[in-house]
């Protein structure tokens, strides 16, 4: 009990110290800038020069802590991981592309790549499709908001929590026993034999993907629902007067109008999929051919302690994210241009 109290006190102290440090830094550095580069006692050119100097230093004072954190925790590691990926197990000898060559020839790596591709095809498509359908349906019903809230709820649940929830759904008991897993209860209800779902290769990956679809659909739904509201009512009304059916309106008017948003949702979920780790780690830990890159990397890094190979796999994940990253940056830059 004593160490729990100490731990809580430690956390509270940390919050206070961190906030005090932030306030002291920001307030203090600003005060010093105004104090030591004051233009009060100088005139003419010197005054404008000092004004100018202060204006060019201040942004960096505002940015410094953030840049420091970003550099140490995100930018430097990217380069360090790149470097480690061409070194050996302990990071002491240069081995060129041996780690990558090993990866390409490793069965589990190939399996991971294949599985990741499957995940990339299935999860974003299903989550976006379900999200869109639910958004469209919910917007037309009086209880739509309650429905959306319930579908959105899994977004708040951790991947591990969701894994336990679904493992319970997929639970398997021997034939003849009472099935307490929902899926096997339904299957045996139709007179079919029960299955140990998460041990059947290829299909088991699909059952794991369903967990992520279940989580991400709420995200897709919320974003797409907002986009649907942005479609001018006159456009829809005009189509209705022309006698277009609801299905035609959906495919010929709604989807083209919000296609940009659909792409954004799709890519955002794609990023989540590329990094997916917790679900595989908790459900199968890569057994029965369900390995994916993130879990494979974790094994080489923290089970085999091979920093070279672990880094090489991390770089592969990074390379997969890169196109979307570049696309995002270009989009952000384009927006700035129009502002």
């Amino acid at each position, binding site marked *: 009990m004593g160490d729990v109290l100490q731990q809580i006190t*430690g*956390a509270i102290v*940390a919050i206070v110290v*961190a*906030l005090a440090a932030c*306030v002291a830094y*920001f*307030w203090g550095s600003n005060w010093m800038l105004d104090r030591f580069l004051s233009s009060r006692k100088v005139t003419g050119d010197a005054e404008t020069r000092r004004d100018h100097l202060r204006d*060019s230093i*201040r*942004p*960096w004072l*505002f*940015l410094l*802590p953030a*840049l420091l954190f970003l550099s140490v*925790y*995100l*930018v430097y*590691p*990217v380069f360090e*991981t790149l470097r*480690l990926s061409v070194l050996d197990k302990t990071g002491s000898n240069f081995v060129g592309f041996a780690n990558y060559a090993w990866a390409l020839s490793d069965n589990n790596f190939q399996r991971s790549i294949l599985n990741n591709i499957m995940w990339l095809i299935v999860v974003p498509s299903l989550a976006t499709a379900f999200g869109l359908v639910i958004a469209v*349906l919910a917007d037309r*019903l009086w209880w739509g908001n309650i429905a959306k*809230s319930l579908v*959105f*709820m899994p*977004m*708040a*649940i951790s*991947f*591990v929590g969701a894994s*336990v*929830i*679904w*493992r*319970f759904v997929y639970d398997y008991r021997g034939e003849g026993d*009472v099935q*307490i*897993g929902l899926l096997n*209860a339904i299957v045996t209800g139709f007179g079919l034999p029960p299955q140990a779902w998460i041990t059947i290769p290829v299909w088991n990956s699909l059952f794991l993907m369903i967990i992520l679809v279940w989580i991400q659909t709420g995200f897709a739904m919320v974003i797409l629902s*907002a986009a649907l509201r942005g479609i001018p009512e006159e456009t829809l009304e005009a189509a209705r007067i022309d006698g277009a059916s*609801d299905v035609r309106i959906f495919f010929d008017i709604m989807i083209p109008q919000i296609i940009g948003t659909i792409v*954004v949702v799709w890519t955002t979920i794609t*990023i989540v999929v*590329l990094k997916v780790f917790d679900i595989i*780690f*908790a459900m199968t830990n890569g057994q029965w051919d369900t390995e994916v890159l993130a879990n494979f*990397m*974790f094994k080489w890094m923290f089970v085999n302690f091979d920093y070279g190979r*672990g880094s090489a796999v*991390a*770089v592969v*994940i990074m390379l997969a994210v890169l196109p979307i*990253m570049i696309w995002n940056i270009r989009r*952000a830059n384009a*927006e*700035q241009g129009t*502002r």
Partner: protein
Amino acid sequence: MTAVAEPAVLTDAPAKPYRSSWRKRLNAGRVITHVLLLLLVALWTLPTVGLLVSSLRDKDQLAVSGWWTALRPSESLGVTRIGTAADQVAKDGHFVISGNVFGADTNKQLGGFGLTNSTPGQTPPGGTMPMSDGGTLTVAANGAFAWTSDTQFTHTRGPRVFYLAEIAPRFTLDNYYEVLTSNGVWRSFINSFTVTIPATIIPILIAAFAAYALAWMRFPFRGFIVALVVGLLVVPLQMSLIPLLTLYNQLAQLFGAENGKTYQGIWLAHTAFGLPLAIYLLRNYMVGLPKEIMESARIDGASHFKIFTGMVLPLSFPALASFSIFQFLWVWNDLLVAMVFLGAQQDKLVLTGKLVSLLGSRGNNWEILTAGAFITIVVPLIVFFALQRYFVRGLLAGSVK
């Protein structure tokens, strides 16, 4: 499917489009919409409902029947040895061995009993069954049995009696009590809070200052830094793990600590990993604040520092709230960062890590897993339902701009 002929009279009436669509909605299309959405919502909520219901059930019932039968009594097969000659009592010229087949368990009802594994329901409750060691056995519905014989019992090994027990539905908080006390989940609960609260609060001010600079100050490389932040939004954490862990371990050596796995370390790591989203969200929000107010304040001689602390920060409250919710949920639900930077020691596990360890060690004890899982998800669910508005706003600002 709704093209049933409309009365011709209505064709030219101005209200026609409205009326026809109203009618259309009333029939098939409308019903299908309701049913379809209901089905989808059921699909999305049933797994969680199942978990919650199961976590509240008696653990014996949970193990033998599906959660959807929670309100019905469940039937299970039981077996017991019913006593030896040493237990007999002489009574009215008979010899009797008595007791209860359920032992001390009082919430069970007998469905039947028998002598073999395959015939547990052979004799109904209250019925009489001859025994191979002599005499007859009667078991009442409440499990009380009496084995009566005219001759003295001599056996030294009690015969086995198989029975069907009906357990009345029972809901209890026992599973939660057990998980919290004997499985160390309580400690993990505290650990999760210890990690999450500072990791949510620390980044806010750091990000807010940076976001203001990127939104309202002019300086070289501003575009580049914005692009960098957008890029870092999607950099996989996997890239950061090895270098940072090495760095932490070196620092720990420098200070003579045991290893680099400390709460301080994970707070700072989460702070950094949350910063790109924080800066991005806040900058997008601050850019949208009215330019006129800023400019007039500048003309009045207010410094950037004053404008920021006096106007922008209070005005940005919705965006700050959105980010805080994101960061809270992300840190609370995180498994990878906690495992790498805090370790897998039992007393340092956060809830997600604890749940994974329970999955490994108690994989078939669903009473433990369901209660444990519900404890890990209940805090985010409360945050989520209480502050959904800010969460949705943040999502919209963060992804579509």
